[in-house]
């Protein structure tokens, strides 16, 4: 997707008047800001873009934008977005999800979206917890985080979203931090510009159920290496990555999936002859 950003687009033109339900201090406020900055930068008209999500605190984002929005059911944002993009390829389609919505209930669609490589931008606001349902562990939660569902912690290996995305065939992989809304804007706009399925994981603290995540701002730092186009190299890097390197970590050049186009269209009535005795 290429767009020429006209000067007239301002970040605030992408924000609806609706007051977010998010807690004060929640990282998601900043993701919203990063998104609006990215859109202004890209210069995509609000009405030419669709923001799709599932269910969760993070998934509340569509109504806070001035774009067309779809707040679907839990875990199914990617299929909804795929339907939109296949039906209307000229639209910019951005998908927002949480670590529960995207990696737990929505894990299968994530796998297949990476593989299918439709031109979507997938942004997961990862707070390593289920915020909306008040503090259960998500796939990315550390094994020893004490919680009501799994007292003493789940004792499970955390899900590695970037590693999985790479294995499944994602075309663009980035990590950002909500506290840095300019950085987030940069990553989102690059992801939108990149053809095919682009995945942006954004660390976005849940100040209510994971207040210790306020310390993330001390931990994140730009990856010390250039973006690689080599899947093997990316795999090696991500395997040793501590989860706090930000930036575009991998790009591929697979062309985006597009439905086949048939040149010689016919009329529906032309099918009748198949049946006539």
């Amino acid at each position, binding site marked *: 997707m290429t767009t020429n950003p006209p000067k007239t687009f301002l970040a605030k033109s992408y924000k609806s008047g*609706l007051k977010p339900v998010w807690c004060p201090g929640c990282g998601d406020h900043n993701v919203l800001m990063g998104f609006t900055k990215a859109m202004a930068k890209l210069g995509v*008209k*609000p*009405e*030419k*873009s*669709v*923001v*799709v999500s599932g269910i969760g605190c993070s998934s509340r984002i*569509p*109504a806070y934008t*001035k*774009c*067309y*929005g*779809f*707040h*679907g*059911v839990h*875990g*199914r944002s*990617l*299929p*909804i*977005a*795929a*339907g*939109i*993009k*296949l*039906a*209307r390829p*000229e*639209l910019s389609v951005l998908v927002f999800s949480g670590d529960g919505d995207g990696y737990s209930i929505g894990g*299968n*669609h994530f*796998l*297949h979206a990476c593989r299918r490589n439709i031109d979507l931008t997938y942004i997961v606001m990862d707070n390593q917890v289920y915020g909306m349902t008040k503090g259960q562990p998500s796939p990315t939660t550390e094994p020893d985080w004490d919680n009501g569902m799994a007292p003493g912690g789940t004792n499970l290996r955390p899900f590695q979203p970037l590693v999985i995305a790479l294995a499944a065939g994602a075309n663009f992989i980035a990590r950002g931090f909500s506290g840095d809304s300019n950085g987030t804007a940069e990553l989102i706009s690059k992801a939108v510009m990149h053809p095919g399925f682009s995945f942006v994981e954004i660390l976005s603290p849940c100040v209510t159920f994971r207040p210790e995540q306020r310390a993330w701002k001390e931990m994140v730092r730009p990856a010390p290496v250039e973006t690689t186009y080599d899947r093997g190299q990316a795999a090696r890097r991500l395997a040793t990555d501590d989860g706090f390197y930000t930036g575009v970590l991998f790009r591929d050049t697979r062309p985006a999936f597009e*439905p*086949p186009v*048939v040149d*010689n*269209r*016919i*009329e*529906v009535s032309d*099918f*009748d002859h*198949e*049946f*006539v*005795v």
Partner: protein
Amino acid sequence: MPSNSQGKIQRLAIAIVGSGGSGVMTVGDLLLRAAAQAGWYGMMRRSSGPQIRGGEVAAYLEFSSKPIEYPGEHFDILLAIDWKNADRFAAEIGLDESSTVFSGESATELPKMVSTTGARVIEVDFKLLLKKLKGGRNNIAALGFLGALIGCPANMLQAEVDRKFSSKAMELEVSFAALQIGVDAVSDLNIDLKLSPPADSDEERWTITGNQAAGLGALRGGIRFVAAYPITPATEILEWMSPRLRKVGGYLLQAEDELASINMSIGASYSGVPSLTATSGPGLALMTESLGLAVAAEIPLVVVNVMRGGPSTGIPTKSEQTDLNLAVHGLHGDAPHLVLAPHSIPDCLWTTQWAVHLAEKLQTPAIVLSDQSLGQTLAVTTRPSDSEFKAEREVLTDVADNYERYALTDSGISPTTLPGTANGQYTADGLEHSPSGTPSSMVEDHDAQLEKRSRKLNNFHYGDDWAEISGNGKIGVITWGSTGGAVREAVQQLDPEGNLIRVMVIRLLSPAQPDLFKNALADTDRVLVVEQSYGAQFYRYLRGYFEMDDRAESFSKPGPLPISSRMLQNKLQDWIAA
């Protein structure tokens, strides 16, 4: 159309059985097509053992000079290419003293399914007959034999064999010879099972399955996007549509599962392209959460559900009408939506097309309940009736300020915008919302939107298409779906003039139309509710949502056997006599 038939028989049912690889289906298919060319009507159902491939199979054919709707349970002819495992089909093949059984192999002992029925048995040892024809196949001889038996012109049989084997010239020659051997074998027998000649009519006839018809109806209605996941017996809808959708500018995507397929369809529809998915019971069960989303967010959508035997994986290859409960009531919350059912193979086209129209018009999901017996039966039938129904969504292109996506209009239908339209931005939401679409948990908004979503469906004028009603007597028979054929056939026998029995086949199952229903049943004394389920789902549903007083009685049998038209006739005969 010419026919050399001199026969008297109005209608003839033929079962063909044989083990895997014996070519049973080819015989059935070619015989039906040849008979179609000759001017007859007919249908063919398939039945098979559990094997994926290579197990025993049966083809059930019916032929008639007039359109036929429903398979009978009685067979005039059974031809066994061989008898291996044929007993497995015993319950499906009703034979009696009036039946003729042709044993295609010389068998020392006939299976119980034959020996206990009193049917006349005649041996036609195809292997023996073909002894001198190298490469001659039993099933082609059987085709010639059956064709000649019912009076199908030999040239029509040849034409079908030609079409089938045209690419292989050598084979063709042998096949023609084998065919002739079969034809000749009939003259050796002193037997007359010839069909009466087809009516000399200009009526256009089609050879089509219900699944193909549903696919064509969808395209005619305007469906241009399909996301689906394969499942028996719905897959043929998808495989028929996929290449054809492309030719009319649409697309079919195979999704990773049913959760994806329904949501992809919802997404495509939200963005303005009429969309469909097709599935069967287990898949429909997986879709109900997202169907609720389509209801709440008011997204048009068609789901064709081709029913098979349940519960659970059940009997995937056989028919039953037991997804009614799920289709009508399977969504959580108060989630009114459309449920429609085609009542014949050609009506699969009409009803699916109507479903597209209604879903788009009313901005809500429509479930079309077809079943295996409609979907997978190949019928020679009258041309499906034409219809003008198209997808016509109320779309705003020029949008004033303060647009409200879920505005409280008189009709309950709120004009929508589509992505791309300036000023029309809104967020489609499954959360309860205010008219503008903003999430709301306020009593007033919930009341207003529940009322609106219900009203738009209830107040819509569906016209006469909600049911097919015929006859005028004091006895009512109500049914739906494929069972409509059984009922119409039974009633046709008992009451050809339509003075005794009133038949109502409901096409619009939900929302219920209690007033229309009441009118249609006015002055009946007794009402029989016919369906193919163990739990009498339809009968229960009617009691719950319509007024039937004490007049109604349930006639409900589970699959996989088709509803017995004979039992139905007996029942109604008693009522007439009473």
